[in-house]
């Protein structure tokens, strides 16, 4: 696929016969055995392989769960509990699937952060990056649909919030929303289609993954030095090693370590990443006090809720939706926003600082998404109790108290006088989560729209190594003589 000549030579009669009819063994050999791979890839590059394992795990465990699951509003919750209690090893398979989703996102975020840091989205890998963004979008869709299926309180009301986002679109929003839900609200018909689509999307992901790997194998891997492997035979030999055994073993080791962490979650804390409310069956009449999505969607949820102001004719609700979808859409055009020719941030000391700021921003946005936006982070003063009443002249008057007892006494005294009086809490000014989320949202967009475009033009990067070989070995030192 990559233009380097195929080194596959069929040896047996059968493989020769097959190779002239369907060269599938040749394709696999050239892609995963003899494929020339930069020799300086670090462990951040193992997450591609880890993600392939994640996808396989989810599809396999999901197919099994579908054998036992009932996609109806009356049966869904009970069937999940039946999987947990009665189906042999059902608990294990369900915990693998539920935690597998989290592990999948953990790996994909590291994979994306690696791409951002080492400039893997830059020419000639733009299509590779965009296909990755498509996969990420499909993953979020799949995860959302899957989270609805257990038909718990978070499933139902989370789905309500998300479909509500679509309803915020002007003119067509309501009809698209009704079309997605198949009725005026989320009901049995919605659950059934979500189940069907949740089964479909992973196979679409698998299809895009094939394109993603194809697009990877045309230019070959990027690498921590960010310089291309040389094309001439001698340079190529110095800069690369064959994928097998060098990276099959390295990836294999990383996969084992990853699976140990995965297993720790499945066996020792299977519910720590979930939400307790989802073990309560869905009830359309009671909304949980605090609706939060799964952890991997929290930063975008924080962006959605950070927009509390209108801009011109666009109200805050629609604007929040635009910002949330915009935060993901912006990733698709990143290759054309970053103007720097230098890929790896190893050689971009200034951009590197902004990159770590970006990572911190994402983590803090996650914290904001998980918190109540009105809760104070830094309180300034304490909350006051305000008793409002009608004074002797019939005007509204207020009296402020620190202590509840004093306020209550005053209110009762007014009530005894036959005057309307009520206590309300006046929240003290504070730096709240919503304020932090607004600052972070600003940084998120500034990083892509201002910092990366301008920095590429203004910063002075460090000297890049002339080749991967030099990046690994420094200047052409003679190899030390082997010990006698």
């Amino acid at each position, binding site marked *: 696929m990559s233009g380097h000549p195929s080194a596959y030579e069929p040896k047996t009669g059968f493989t020769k016969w097959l190779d002239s009819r369907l060269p599938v063994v040749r394709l696999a050999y050239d892609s995963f055995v003899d494929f020339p791979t930069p020799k300086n890839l670090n462990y951040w590059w193992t997450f591609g392989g880890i993600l392939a394992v994640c996808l396989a795990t989810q599809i396999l465990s999901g197919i099994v769960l579908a054998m036992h699951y009932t996609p109806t509003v009356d049966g869904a919750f009970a069937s999940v509990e039946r999987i947990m209690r009665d189906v042999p090893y059902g608990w294990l398979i369900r915990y693998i699937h539920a935690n597998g989703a989290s592990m999948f996102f953990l790996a994909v975020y590291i994979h994306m952060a690696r791409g951002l840091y080492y400039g893997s989205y830059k020419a000639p890998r733009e299509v590779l990056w965009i296909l990755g963004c498509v996969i990420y979008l499909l993953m979020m869709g799949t995860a959302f649909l899957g989270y609805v299926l257990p038909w718990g309180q978070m499933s139902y009301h989370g789905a309500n919030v998300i479909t509500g986002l679509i309803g915020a679109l002007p003119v067509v929003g309501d009809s698209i929303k009704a079309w997605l839900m198949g*009725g005026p609200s989320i009901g049995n018909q919605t659950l059934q289609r979500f189940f069907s689509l949740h089964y479909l999307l992973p196979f679409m992901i698998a299809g895009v993954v094939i394109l993603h790997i194809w697009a990877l194998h045309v230019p070959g891997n990027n690498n921590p030095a960010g310089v291309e492997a040389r094309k001439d035979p001698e340079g190529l030999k110095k800069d690369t090693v064959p994928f097998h055994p060098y990276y099959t073993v390295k990836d294999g080791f990383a996969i084992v370590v990853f699976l140990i962490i995965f297993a720790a979650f499945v066996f020792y804390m299977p519910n720590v990443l979930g939400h307790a409310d989802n073990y309560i069956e869905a009830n359309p009449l009671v909304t949980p006090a605090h609706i939060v999505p799964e952890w991997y969607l929290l930063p975008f949820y924080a962006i959605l809720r950070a927009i509390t102001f209108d801009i011109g004719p666009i109200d805050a609700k629609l604007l929040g939706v635009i910002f949330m979808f915009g935060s993901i859409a912006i990733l698709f055009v990143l290759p054309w926003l970053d103007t720097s020719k230098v890929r790896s941030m190893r050689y971009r000391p200034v951009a590197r600082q902004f990159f770590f700021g970006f990572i911190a921003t994402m983590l803090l946005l996650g914290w904001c998404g998980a918190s109540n936006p009105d809760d104070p982070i830094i309180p300034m003063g304490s909350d006051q109790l305000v008793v409002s009443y009608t004074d002797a002249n019939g005007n509204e008057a207020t009296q402020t108290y620190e202590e509840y007892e004093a306020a209550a006494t005053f209110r009762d005294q007014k009530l005894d006088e036959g005057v309307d009086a009520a206590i*309300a809490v006046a929240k003290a000014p504070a730096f709240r989560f919503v304020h932090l989320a607004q600052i972070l949202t600003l940084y998120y967009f500034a990083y892509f729209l201002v910092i990366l475009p301008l920095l590429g033009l203004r910063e002075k990067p460090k000297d890049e190594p002339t080749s991967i070989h030099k990046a690994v070995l420094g200047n052409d030192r003679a190899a030390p003589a082997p010990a006698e």
Partner: protein
Amino acid sequence: MSEAQSTPHETIDEDRRDFIHIATAATAAAGAGALAYVFIDQMNAASDTKAASSLDVDISKVPLGGEVRVLIGGKPFFIRHRTEAEIKAAEAVDVSKLRDPQTDEERLIPMQNGELNRAMLVTSGTCTHLGCVPVGPSQGNTGDYGGWYCPCHGSHYDTSGRIRKGPAPSNLPVPDYRYVSPTTINISL
């Protein structure tokens, strides 16, 4: 057929070919479009779903100061029996200062005799922000304005179901309902 007769056909008529190409592609596109319509429209509400879209509610059982919550087609609705103080509070509001200006009277539908039943407020039970169900008197939290409070993102509604504070853009909508008798209303989606 003799070979001599085939000579005139050796020239290719590009126009005829273009016509055939366009006609074929157009027919295929029309077929695909017609089929796509079927596959898209099947996701819209089915007839039985549409049919289950109205409900008679006995409002005489709603306790004073309390409310009844009903589901119609899976959507929640509130029927609130307001106290005198709550009605007064709803009517005393300066409408011009509201985000979604509506008087309390505009939010009531007259009974069959043309009078307003000011004690009974019927609203949608879906927060206009992102569709959560606000809490009310039965849950012990009526927000800063005595009506409803949406726990999801902190929208406060008053005793007329109007948005007063928080992110929601508009009032709790008044559904399409009518008085069948003085004690029964029919709510439809």
